[in-house]
């Protein structure tokens, strides 16, 4: 099908496409920079990410709901999207029950720290990750032999099974859920209320009056007190985990394992013929993805609220996770992070629309999918392929014109 009848990219006739190609230009511009510049950009971005809940930039900040809490949710979603990106983006396995792993991580933490034990959070965290990884292997071992689309429904079932099980098993708190999950241990002196708020030092946050900022010492964040009032320390904790996972993700993607995933995704039979044990690598992707989901779930359980129940893990959440990965650009870790952030952030930001937010979210998802089928930040490989296709098409069109003229 030729695209030559459509208006050229970037004209006023198609503003959406113009925005899209401008954005591609920005990404390309970044990719062309030398390494030090890139490192600088990344460092600034990380610093900004840490400072964001304290800077509270106008427009971006949510008015009706605590911004720190929203940022925690955003980071938790980004972490999940990163994990799911390994499963969907790298290994090409459609997992519609990812919320199951999120729940396993959260419940393991809750059971160990309060319900059947009194472990400190930082001890329960690695155990939760390992348990989730094992659950990933247990689910994956029988089901990964099933072909792609069937895997989707099997995992969907898994997510439901986990939710129904915790709802009906008294040992796991039934439908009432588990409350009073302890927060992570404080770093620095503990608060002695009512006067000493504890912590090593306090960081004030900005207060914006229109577009003029001022320091707000009344709502200072204590470093590093995990209390019930301030969500910012939780955000920092999960953001740190996110950065560590990104580094790990980068290492593994560029390794032999990452190449094996890519080969398996593109053509499983060919990969198998070339001696790649595809099943082993698929299982590995599944388990790794599960572990990261469990990590995020563990943070969620011991988060500010300290409460989980079966209703915290509805099947719809799985759909949101998948949407996050695909919207961001399946196969690109930055895309996944951006997608996770968007999917978590938009409904919170538009809470003012209250009843309409899910409707708007649904429409936005459809519009995004139709507008940019390859996601906001497609992996470089996909973009190169698209570029090459466009070039070939341009060449063919050129030839056609020549022959008609000549």
């Amino acid at each position: 099908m030729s695209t030559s009848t459509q208006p050229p990219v970037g004209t006023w006739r198609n503003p959406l496409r113009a925005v899209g190609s401008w954005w591609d230009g920005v990404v390309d511009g970044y990719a062309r920079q030398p390494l030090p510049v890139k490192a600088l950009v990344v460092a600034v971005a990380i610093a900004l990410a840490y400072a964001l809940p304290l800077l509270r930039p106008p427009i971006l900040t949510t008015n009706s709901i605590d911004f720190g809490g929203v940022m925690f949710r955003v980071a938790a979603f980004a972490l999940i999207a990163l994990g799911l990106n390994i499963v969907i983006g790298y290994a090409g396995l459609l997992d519609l029950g990812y919320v199951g792993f999120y729940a396993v991580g959260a419940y393991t933490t809750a059971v160990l720290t309060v319900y059947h034990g009194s472990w400190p959070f930082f001890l329960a965290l690695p155990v939760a990750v390992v348990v989730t990884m094992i659950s990933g292997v247990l689910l994956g071992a029988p089901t990964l032999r099933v072909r792609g689309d069937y895997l989707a429904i099997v995992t969907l079932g898994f997510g439901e099974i986990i939710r129904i099980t915790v709802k009906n098993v008294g040992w796991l708190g039934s439908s009432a859920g588990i409350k009073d999950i302890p927060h992570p241990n404080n770093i620095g002196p503990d608060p002695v209320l009512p006067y000493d708020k504890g912590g090593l030092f306090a960081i004030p946050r900005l207060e914006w009056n229109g577009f003029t900022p001022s320091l707000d010492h009344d709502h200072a964040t204590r470093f590093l007190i995990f209390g019930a009032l301030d969500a910012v320390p939780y955000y920092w904790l999960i953001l740190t985990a996110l950065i560590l996972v990104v580094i790990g993700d980068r290492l593994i993607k560029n390794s032999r394992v990452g190449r094996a995933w890519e080969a398996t995704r593109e053509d499983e039979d060919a990969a198998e013929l070339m001696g790649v044990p595809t099943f082993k690598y698929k299982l590995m992707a599944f388990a790794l993805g599960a572990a990261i989901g469990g990590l995020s779930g563990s943070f969620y359980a011991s988060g500010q609220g300290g409460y989980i129940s079966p209703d915290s893990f509805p099947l719809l959440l799985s759909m949101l996770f998948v949407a996050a990965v695909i919207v961001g650009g399946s196969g690109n870790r930055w895309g996944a992070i951006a997608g996770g952030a968007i999917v978590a952030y938009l409904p919170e930001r538009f809470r003012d629309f209250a009843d309409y937010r899910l409707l708007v979210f649904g429409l936005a998802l459809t519009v995004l999918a139709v507008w940019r089928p390859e996601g906001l930040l497609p992996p470089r490989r996909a973009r190169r392929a698209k570029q090459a296709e466009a070039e070939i098409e341009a060449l063919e069109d050129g030839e056609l014109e020549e022959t008609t003229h000549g």
Partner: protein
Amino acid sequence: MHLDALFGSFDNFLSYTTGGLVFGAIYALVALGYTMVYGVLQLINFAHSEVFMFGTFGMAWTFYFLHGSEPVTWSLGRAAPMLLASLVVAMAVSAGIALLLERVAYRPLINKNAPKLIALISAIGASFALAEAMGLRDRFASWVGLDDDLANYVSPEKARDVYSNPVTIQPHNLFDVGGYSITDVDLVVVLAAILMMVALDQFVRRTRFGRGIRATAQDPESAALMGVNSTRVVQMTFLIGGLMAGVAATLYMMKIGSTRQNAGFILGVKAFTAAVMGGIGNLRGALLGGLILGVMENWGSAVFGPNWKDVTAFVLLVLILLVRPSGLLGEALGKARA
């Protein structure tokens, strides 16, 4: 475990089985929508559950329109004329939504030759939007200032709550199988479902359109070269799925009597499970999968308790896929012979 509950007496066993068959028939009809779209496009039409949900509302709206809001209890015979009218409306509403879905959420992506996964996302988005639009129908009505006139249809104070048919259809026992009385409603549900399935099966096998659908399912490119209008075939597929969902919606409302804006979701998941179980893309598989799923989950709820009904359904699915990775009857919309 309460094996006694199920196997203690043959009567119990029969009654759970027949009860399951009734729901299985409804699952099967909804499963057709998934299976048809998957057979032709290899896409999971996630928003099909919303097509069904709109059908249930179409059915209830017809009763409000023809009868009014006064709650009454009628026998099946007394309600039959209105049921037929509501069947037509529900089929029209569902088919309309299905066609809208195809036009807005699928066709642009198919034209762009987009990856399969993105169509799933587009469908998930459309599913959210449709369910929410139904839940917010009171707001839309008040925007255009019709909330008073349409009060019965939008039910202002509870647009998100359960929406009941004003006419309760009182089932009458026809005969007993085991301890379970087969009612006229049950019989109509199962017979109507099977009738629709047979009609569709014959349509796909014998008509010109059916041949086009099968050709496209087998090899879209060759079919297009042979003069099959693939856009029309895709449209037709969605239309058929929508019509079947409309029938399922009417039968569901006959049996249950009420619906709500998120009624489609779980039923959709079950129906999709049924489609996969029977072999997705396979029409007869959808019927078989639906009936088996309905029966098995009823057995499961007898043995393990009603809370574990859904778990039984999914565990069963996993087990079947492990033994037969492409479903009970295999996946073959394209391979069906004329």
